[in-house]
């Protein structure tokens, strides 16, 4: 059996009385691109920080490459490249200087460090900006520099926290493409967190949906959809020219068809869902009955629907404890107010 490269067992983290991460179990295999998907404040960043040993878990363990992250953070950090959300650089240093500094911290020999940093910058497409100060970088360039910074230490695992935040759509596409290429070329394991489902959908092999500190579901997008809509993964919407007069009889007839599990009739629109894709049969059925079909639309469940389903119940609760509400930014006065 393949040994998972990231293994999380019952990881739990409290911030005061707030449970940021709740009994998380997860394992990620080598070479996978895993997407941690969830709204703001779901505990994604906290989980990542615990994986790196930057925050101590209240309970449970996280193992990366067989090392306990809370006990052996230094060897873990040697193997894991981490790009935080809002990645920051020393603004007064150039891109190359920023990278060589990180290279030195990773114990890259002095003779090589400059060349390796330079090569890395070329690889992420920042050749033109090697001697530009990081303070003058645009958001997208900073993300690229962040990626170079992560790759410089030649990690086995890369963890990217909200890597596409604040980049324009083309930038996002290029960036994700870069990530995918790297993963394929070097067999890297990538864990990326995002609240942008479309981006996650583009690159990830497997997705975990994370809400309120709990992992609600994990798997590839098809399995997720199947789990969620297990009764009826396929749905067809048929639009007719005129409203149906005897809806009940029609519903019963349709339900008699194989693999159909649910029918709803709403004026001129009939929605049929079932376990299999039987769109041709349905169309034939309507035509045989003499209905004027003006439109047939097959609905497939993408992450959008999955996201909606999972989050609709949780969004309201989470609105109150979002990151920006300042978990850690209690001011001098509010502390007294609370008492």
């Amino acid at each position: 059996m393949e040994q998972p490269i990231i293994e999380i067992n019952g990881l739990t983290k409290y911030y005061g009385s707030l449970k940021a991460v709740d009994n998380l179990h997860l394992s990620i295999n080598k070479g996978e691109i895993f997407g941690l998907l969830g709204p703001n404040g779901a505990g994604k960043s906290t989980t990542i920080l615990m994986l790196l040993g930057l925050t101590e878990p209240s309970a449970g363990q996280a193992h990366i490459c067989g090392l306990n992250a809370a006990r052996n953070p230094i060897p873990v950090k040697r193997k894991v490249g981490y790009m935080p959300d809002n990645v920051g650089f020393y603004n007064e240093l150039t891109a190359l200087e920023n990278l060589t500094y990180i290279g030195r911290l990773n114990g890259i020999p002095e003779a090589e460090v400059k060349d390796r940093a330079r090569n890395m910058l070329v690889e992420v497409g920042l050749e033109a900006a090697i001697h530009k100060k990081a303070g003058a970088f645009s958001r997208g360039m900073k993300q690229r520099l962040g990626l170079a910074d992560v790759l410089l230490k030649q990690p086995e695992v890369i963890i990217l926290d909200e890597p596409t935040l604040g980049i324009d759509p083309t930038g996002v596409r290029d960036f994700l493409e870069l990530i995918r290429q790297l993963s394929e070329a070097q067999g890297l394991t990538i864990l990326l967190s995002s609240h942008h489902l479309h981006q996650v959908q583009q690159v990830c092999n497997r997705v975990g949906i994370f809400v309120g500190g709990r992992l609600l579901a994990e798997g590839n997008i098809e399995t997720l959809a199947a789990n969620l809509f297990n009764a009826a993964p396929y749905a067809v919407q048929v639009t007719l020219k005129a409203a149906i007069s005897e809806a009940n009889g029609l519903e019963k007839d349709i339900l008699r068809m194989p693999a159909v599990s649910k029918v709803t009739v709403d004026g001129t629109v009939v929605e049929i869902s079932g376990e299999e894709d039987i769109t041709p049969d349905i169309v034939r059925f309507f035509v045989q009955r003499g209905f004027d079909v003006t439109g047939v639309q097959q609905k497939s469940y993408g992450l959008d629907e999955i996201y909606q389903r999972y989050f609709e119940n949780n969004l309201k609760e989470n609105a109150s404890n979002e990151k920006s509400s300042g978990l850690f930014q209690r001011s001098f006065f509010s502390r007294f107010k609370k008492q």
Partner: protein
Amino acid sequence: MKSQAAYFNGLFSAGSKSSNPKATSPFFAMVRKEVADQVHSWRFIILAGLILLTFLGSMYVSITNISKAVSNINDPDRLYLYLKLLTTTDGSLPPFHIFIGFLGPLLGISLGFDTINSEQSSGTLIRLMAQPVYRDSVINAKFVASLIVISTLFLSLNLLMIGGGLVITGVSMEPSELVRILCFVILSVIYVSFWLNLSILLSVKFRQPATSALTAIAIWLFFTVFYQIIVNVIIKAFLPSPDVLSQDQLVAYNRIILTFLRFVPSQLYTDATTTLLMPSVRSLGPLTMEQMAGAIPSPLSVRESLLVVWPQVSGLIAATVVCFALSYYLFMRREIRT
């Protein structure tokens, strides 16, 4: 023969391998970067320029008055030419060590006030922590880097003074003078590093660099201006009038007042530097007639001067260590996420 060649081959490649990956340790890489940052930063350049200016000013004043000071027969310290260079003044400018008592805190605060919080707010701290370095090396490296910068500054200024004095006057230097001047340098470094550690502590505590800078300056202002006023007010309110006191009582009360005044770091520094740079100072408190009886007004040896200032020096070191320990503790315990 073949095997021998192979043996050599392996030997050389092994040798080159072991010598090749000569990486600097992360801690020194950090120290190096921090020193470069400090030296390149405008605030350091400005403050160093300010200190250099006051140094040149007070040196100029003391050199123009040095012949008077050295020929003053009533002064038992007159033959310590280099100590005189540091302390002589005609009243137009305070001597250099008084200036440092005033500017040193500013230097320390400016080097330390944004140590941690600016890294945190710019998002570099978390990236730094994701590298294989121990968390304490961050704060240690920052402290050591600032310490190196301060020591270099003070040492080079004093060596400049010695060299200049040597060139201008041609008088050779007593070993005890050199020891005293070096002690003065060390003392100044400790004094500045107290303020440095205080501002590092505040930079760990407060998230905004402006808050920590202003708090540090407020503490400094409190100690330089208001503390003395408050102590005086309290003395006036609580202590009986000196007219009705006996000599012994007066001395006892004076001791208490002095003890309170010595809570101020700059007081400790001034006391200690005065004693070190003026060898004839034998006590920092009031002396009774019995103690003074039979004493010849002559300079003390270095060891005795050091013994006189030892309480002050240990007080300063203790305050520095406490500040550093506190900031170390707070930094190790804090959440580093933004």
